[in-house]
Each structure stands twice: as structure tokens, then as C-alpha cells.
């Protein structure tokens, strides 16, 4: 019944061009704030029930979460330091999403990036710190970028689903990391926890002056803003949005879809690889299994909550960074298990995915055109 849909479409076309009103003009934007916001509130409410089952007062919970995340200057710094890698790993999901791809392997690119950055630092023992740091940035980005490019290549040239391949590549990355850290790259002095040698205190990237927040946050902010500009203001981003919006339309105007996929995947992986470099050069000082802390996976959550918008990733990453920063306080004050915040993250993810069905269905936001 094709005529039927034509009827519906026609209805939009012939409507009088009256002023559609505030809600209709900004309905979509409001939706993008309202729906994830409601999902977050819903998830917090369910988490409150979860905590109540442990015999704790949910109101205490919310208070301590706020305290632990944003209550003091100290907790703000803790939050921001955690937000930095989240911004970068979220971009690893959000950039390919512009092309319609679902990449969930940021954790793997982070690990490979960390390994590559550590390798670069250890290979340049007597160079000035700035050179070493630059080499680490390049190595981390190239390492992570190539890793996600593998997923892109498998998708473009072999038709392998990029979601599955990127996830599986996480486990391969972890295995490579363990293999190297317990083998050729192992520092003989690391006995209980096999690690590489330290990159050296001089090569650490340090903190933003006047704070305890490392420079990784600035890297993240720059990467997010640059991604936004790339997607919305450049020829490359336009081509990517065409291909992501409708691959058939991209082909009919002759856009090289393969090149777009490979480039976007490289940039996405480079971003997560940079997160790995930051974790090594600003936090850990060496590579070991500690790096697999789940930043890559939380980044997926951040990207989805931000509706894959590179700028929206910044506040969402800070929010999620805050939730993870509050974990310690919850443990100390409420005696909740350490993994509680991961339960909360899981609940948030479930709510965010479920809330996806609501877009365009909220009655009072719908344009009556």
C-alpha cells in the first residue's frame, strides 16, 4: 500500500507554514536532553532500590555520590582525572557511529595504545622528555588507530560485523599485552605483578598547573572539540555523515565509502590509543594489567548517553567520571561493595538503550505539522 505512506508524507508537505511554536522548533533538542536525563534518573532510582536491599538509605547514597563526585575540590579533581580517558574512549565509539558503525572495542585500542606508547618511551632512553612524550603520543595513536582499523578493514573488505570483531579484538589486545608484559617487555624487578619497566619520572606528562588533574583532560577536550569540528564543519565530516545516513546515497554521488570507513576507524582508535598513552604517561608510569580498568567499556556508555555527539561527550564523561569517583566514598561511608558503581553503570546502560525507543514518540514534543 504505497499510496498510504504517500498520503502521510503529503500531509506534512501541504501543511500551512504557520509558526510552529517553541516546542516544535526545539522539540528534537529537548528530546536529546530530556530522554537521556530521564534514563539517568530512572537508573539512579533503580540503583536506590538496589541499595535499599542492602539495608542502606538511598537518600544517603545520593548524598554521598554527590559528595564523592562533585562535593569538594578534591572530588572534582578525582572526577576530572577519570573523565579524561572516558572522553577519549567515548570518541572511539562516537566517531564510527557517524558512519553508522557500532564499534565497542575502545578498550582494545586503549591497551594497544598504552603498549605502543610504553614501547616508544623505553626505546628512547636518552632523549629529552618532550621528544619522548611526542613519540609516545604518536605511537599510542598509531597503535590504537591501527587496531580499530583492523575492525574497519574486516567490515569493508570481508563483510565481518564490526561490533563483534572490535569486541573480540579487545581480548586479543589483552592477550598480547599479557604476553609481552610477562615476556620480552617484563621488568625483572616486578615480581607479583608482571609489568614493563617504568618510563621514567622525567617522561611523565604531569598535572595542569594548580591542580592534581593531569594533562590528559586537555587532550580529551581538544580531541572532542576537534572531532565535533571535523564531523560538522569539514568536507570529510560531511561525506561521513552522508555515508552514515544512507550508504546508497553516498555511492550514487560517488563517495569512496571504503576510505571513509578506514579513516574514521583510524581516528577512533587513535583517540582510544591516546587514552592508553595518557594512562601510562600520567597515571601508571608503566604498562601492566592494571590498564584494563574498563575505561574502554565505560566509554561506550558515555558515547551512547551523549547520543554520539562529540561535544555532549564532555559533560557526560564528567558525569560518569563522577559516578566512578564516588565509588570509594560509597565503600567507606556506606560499606557498599566496591563493584556497586559498576552495577549502577550497567543499570544506566540498560536504561539508555531502552530509552532509545522513545525518540519521536513523546506526544507534547511532536510537531503537529
Amino acid at each position, binding site marked *: 500500500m504505497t499510496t498510504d505512506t504517500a498520503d502521510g508524507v503529503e500531509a506534512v508537505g501541504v501543511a500551512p507554514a504557520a509558526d510552529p511554536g517553541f516546542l516544535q522548533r526545539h522539540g528534537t533538542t529537548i528530546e536529546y536532553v530530556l530522554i537521556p536525563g530521564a534514563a539517568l534518573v530512572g537508573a539512579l532510582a533503580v540503583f536506590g532500590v538496589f541499595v535499599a536491599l542492602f539495608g542502606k538509605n538511598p537518600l544517603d547514597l545520593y548524598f554521598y555520590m554527590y559528595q564523592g563526585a562533585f562535593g569538594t575540590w578534591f572530588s572534582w579533581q578525582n572526577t576530572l582525572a577519570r573523565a579524561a580517558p572516558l572522553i577519549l574512549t567515548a570518541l572511539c565509539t562516537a566517531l564510527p557511529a557517524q558512519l553508522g558503525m557500532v564499534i565497542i572495542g575502545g578498550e582494545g585500542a586503549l591497551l594497544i595504545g598504552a603498549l605502543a606508547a610504553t614501547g616508544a618511551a623505553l626505546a628512547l632512553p636518552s632523549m629529552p622528555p618532550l621528544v619522548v612524550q611526542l613519540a609516545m603520543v604518536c605511537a599510542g595513536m598509531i597503535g590504537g588507530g591501527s587496531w580499530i582499523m583492523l575492525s574497519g578493514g574486516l567490515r569493508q573488505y570481508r563483510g565481518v560485523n564490526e561490533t563483534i570483531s572490535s569486541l573480540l579484538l579487545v581480548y586479543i589486545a589483552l592477550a598480547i599485552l599479557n604476553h609481552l608484559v610477562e615476556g620480552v617487555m617484563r621488568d625483572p624487578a616486578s615480581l607479583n605483578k608482571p609489568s614493563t619497566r617504568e618510563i621514567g619520572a622525567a617522561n611523565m606528562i604531569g598535572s595542569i598547573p594548580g591542580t592534581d588533574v593531569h594533562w590528559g583532560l586537555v587532550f580529551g577536550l581538544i580531541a572532542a572539540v576537534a572531532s565535533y569540528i571535523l564531523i560538522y564543519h569539514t568536507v570529510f565530516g560531511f561525506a561521513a555523515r552522508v555515508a552514515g545516513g544512507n550508504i546508497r546515497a553516498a555511492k550514487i554521488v560517488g563517495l*569512496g565509502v571504503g576510505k571513509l570507513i578506514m579513516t574514521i576507524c583510524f581516528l577512533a582508535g587513535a583517540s582510544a590509543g591516546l587514552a592508553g598513552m595518557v594512562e601510562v604517561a600520567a597515571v601508571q608510569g608503566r604498562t601492566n594489567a592494571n590498564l584494563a580498568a574498563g575505561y574502554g567499556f565505560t566509554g561506550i556508555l558515555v558515547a551512547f548517553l551523549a547520543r554520539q555527539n562529540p561535544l555532549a561527550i564532555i559533560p557526560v564523561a564528567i558525569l560518569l567520571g563522577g559516578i566512578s569517583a564516588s565509588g570509594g566514598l560509597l565503600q567507606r561511608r556506606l560499606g557498599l561493595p566496591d563493584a556497586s558503581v559498576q552495577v549502577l553503570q550497567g543499570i544506566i546502560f540498560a536504561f539508555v538503550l531502552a530509552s532509545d525507543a522513545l525518540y519521536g514518540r513523546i506526544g507534547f514534543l511532536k510537531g503537529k505539522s
Partner: protein
Amino acid sequence: MIIGETPLPAGALGVDAVAMTMRFGDFVALDNVALKVRPGTFHALLGENGAGKSTLVKCIMGYYHPTEGDVLVGGREQAIANPKDAHALGLGMVYQHFTLVPAMTVAENLVLARDDVPAVLEWTKEKKQLAAFLARMPFKVPLDSRVSDISAGERQKCEILKQLYLKRRFLILDEPTSVLTPGEADEVLGMLRDMVLGGDLTILMITHKFREVMAFADEVTILRRGKLAGHGKVADLTPDNMARMMIGAEELTIQPARVGGVGEARLELDKLSALDDAGAIAVRGVSLAVRGGEIVGIAGVSGNGQRQLVEVLAGQREAESGEVRVAGDIYRASREEMRRHKMSLLPEEPLKNACVGGMSVADNIAFREFDRAPFASGGWWLNRTAFRDDAEKKIAQYKIKTRTPDTPISALSGGNVQRTVLARELGGDVEVLIAANPCFGLDFAAVAQIHAEIMAARNRGAAVLLVSEDLDELLELSDRLVVMFHGQFVYEARASEADLTEIGRHMAGH
């Protein structure tokens, strides 16, 4: 049923729709429309897309509940709450697209359509009954063949037989001939007309083909923009009268006359083959040359490889073997080649094939040029002002009805989406134009504009390949006509000398 109520009359049923109004929100799809279909007549319902034909029949069938108005079946008011009620009254509908299960046989499809299929089927008994039923019918269909193995014409007959088997006495046909060759269409409609004359059946046919209305219908009702535009006996009307009622006072773009000579071969296909999505061969080694200043039309029943052929030319599908040459150079549908040869593509279903629904009208207009000045500064930075200026110019020039250039294109009607694609594809110089069903489902104004644009491109010296399922369109526009059947070009003629029966025969593969 109320006890003591007189039963519905036997034989053909009449249906009246009285003062039907249907609103969807603020939009009035039907405005006080009356339709009177007398029992035992063949009634045509004419109207452009969006005129409200589908809405009206859906109200009759119980898919929609009209805002106001009543339906009278056999002269009595009936509350039809859902399609089941309509079926119980003896009303049936045949849809434009097939509703048979392809993997099952015709007999299985017929029996399974019944409301009272028993848990265990006695096939010997059922088959005997089916054979007896078929003996009374004017159509013959192979009961034991799988639906996937029979032709489109036979499938359409099965759909109609299914309705008769279910004892429907008032049948609504929604553009029943859109997938048939002219010969098949005449056969099916002729048999239905005989049944109507026999007094067993009433038919209400939705159509936009005047030829079928003139040849088969007794009466006609015409809708325009949700309102009744006219009705009467077909014998008292001419196609011109009816067209005027359908279009109203709207002015149509005048098609330029065919002028200019034929030039060099611009687009050449050489033993081109392509597969369909399932990996079966769809285009079988076709060769063709289209010269500048010439429109070559490709006719054929849908599903004979035309879609795959166009997809190869559009870069949406890899050729399996053979080659395409444009102006003598091998062509692989890259952006650089499309640009160098000034190629334009008007694919079918433009929203699905040539637009990004979520992006704005201005963005969609810029798809071909966004990476060049003035749209891109320095080859990489998007210049939004240029997007907007160009869009505003083309929206005015191509009469695209959109609220703003920033409106997402998915909010536009089908005709305006196609106009947007026209503006993009024909806004610059064109040397090769490939169009596939460019007017499918569009209203008269849009069709006239698109035909005029295609003819104008030809007159400017472009090589045009026009693939269409609409023979009238092909005969009107083409210089040469090629018939495609089973992935091959089986017939070629000059359009001015082409014979409709001959073309129909080749479309059906005889």
C-alpha cells in the same frame, strides 16, 4: 446479527460511503466524500497520490475509523470496526503488492487464507473442492505450482481467486495492474468484467490509468486533495475530462519539443552482467550504446534485472563481468568519473537511494558539489553560507515546497523529495543522465516537471537512459525503446514506430 433482520441480498453487493470525513490531527485526508458503488458494476476510483483514495477504501474495509460518515453495505448501514467485520459482510481487497506465501503452492495459499482452517487438513478432499471451485471460475491457475514459480500475471489472478474463494462479493482492487504487462492486465480485467456482468461481483478499482478506466469501468469517482472532484458514467466522459477533474486548476510545466540531432555514443554497456542480492544472475551480458541527444527507454515488468542494471551504473552494485564506458573511457562510478563526464542519476525511490533523510534539504542539494568551491573553502572547510544560498536558489527554481532549507528532507512529500534530487542532479551541465522510474507515485505537476526536465536535458545534447515500468512514459519520452526480460535485452524499436502489442509480448517473454 439481529434476529429477524433480513439477510443481505445474494450475489453482487453494493457499497455506499456517505459523507465520509477522515482527519489525522489537523490534516483532513477526506472531506465529506460520497462514493456510490451500485451492485453488479465495475467502478473506478481515480485520483492522484495523496488524493485520499487509499484512505477512503481503508475506511470501508475497517482499517480506519472515519471521523464522520457511514458505510452502507447492500443498502444497509453497517458498523465496520475492523477488516474481519468487512470480510464477514463479503467485502474483500486485493493489494497492490502480493500477499501470497512464495514458498507454498497455490492450493496451500488458497486454503490457508480461510478463517476456519481445520487443525488437520484432508488434502484430497480440499483439492477436490478447489478443483470444483476453479471449474466455476474464468481464471485458470496451476494449483500445485509454487507461487514463486508462477508469473506476476498468474499471481495477480491467484490473489483475486483467493478473494472469490473466500466468497467475497464486493472486491476492492488497489492498482491491480501495476505489476502486469498490458496483455496480462487486459486479460485479468476482462475476466473480472465478465464476472461483474454475470451479476456475481461488484468491483471498485483504484487506478490512475485512463486506458483501463475507459475500457473496463462502468462508472467512475474522482477525488482531488481529499474532496470529491466528480463522478459519473464512463460512457459520458473522456480522459481529458477526467484528467482535468483530477488535477484541478493547477498549471503543468509544458514539455519542450523534441529538437536537435543525435551525437556520438556517450554511454556504452558491453556484455554487462550483474548479480542480485541473493547471488543469482540478474543482468545477463547486455550491450547497448546511448548517444548524445537521445533518450533510450528500457521497458520491462519489474524484477527483470532493470534495478540491478541501474545500480551498477549508479555505483551501488559491482558488475559481475563486462564493462561500462562513458565517452569511451572505462567507468567505475567513482566521484571523479561522474564529475568528469557530467553524469546525473535519478534513481527510483529517491529518499531510499539518493538522499539522507535526517540531513537538511540544503545539505541534500549539495551532495554532488560540497567538496568544491564555493561550498568548501580551501577544499576542506564547509562554507554554510554557500550551502544556503545555493539551496534557496534551487528551491525557488525547482518549486520545492519546504518550510526552510534546513528542514530534514524526510519531512517533504515524495514529489518534493524528487524535485530536490532533480535540482541537485540537473542543476548543472549534464552529459549523461540515467533515470529509473523517476515519476513513480508522483502527482501530475511533479511528473510534468520531471518529463520536461528530462526532455530538456536530451535537447541540450545529453545521453539519457530511462528505465521505467510505465510504458506510456517510455513511449512519450524515448527516441529508442529496448525491452528487458530475464536480464536480457530482447527487443528494440524506434519509439515512434513501436507497436504496443509487440512490446507487451516481449515484456512477457514470448
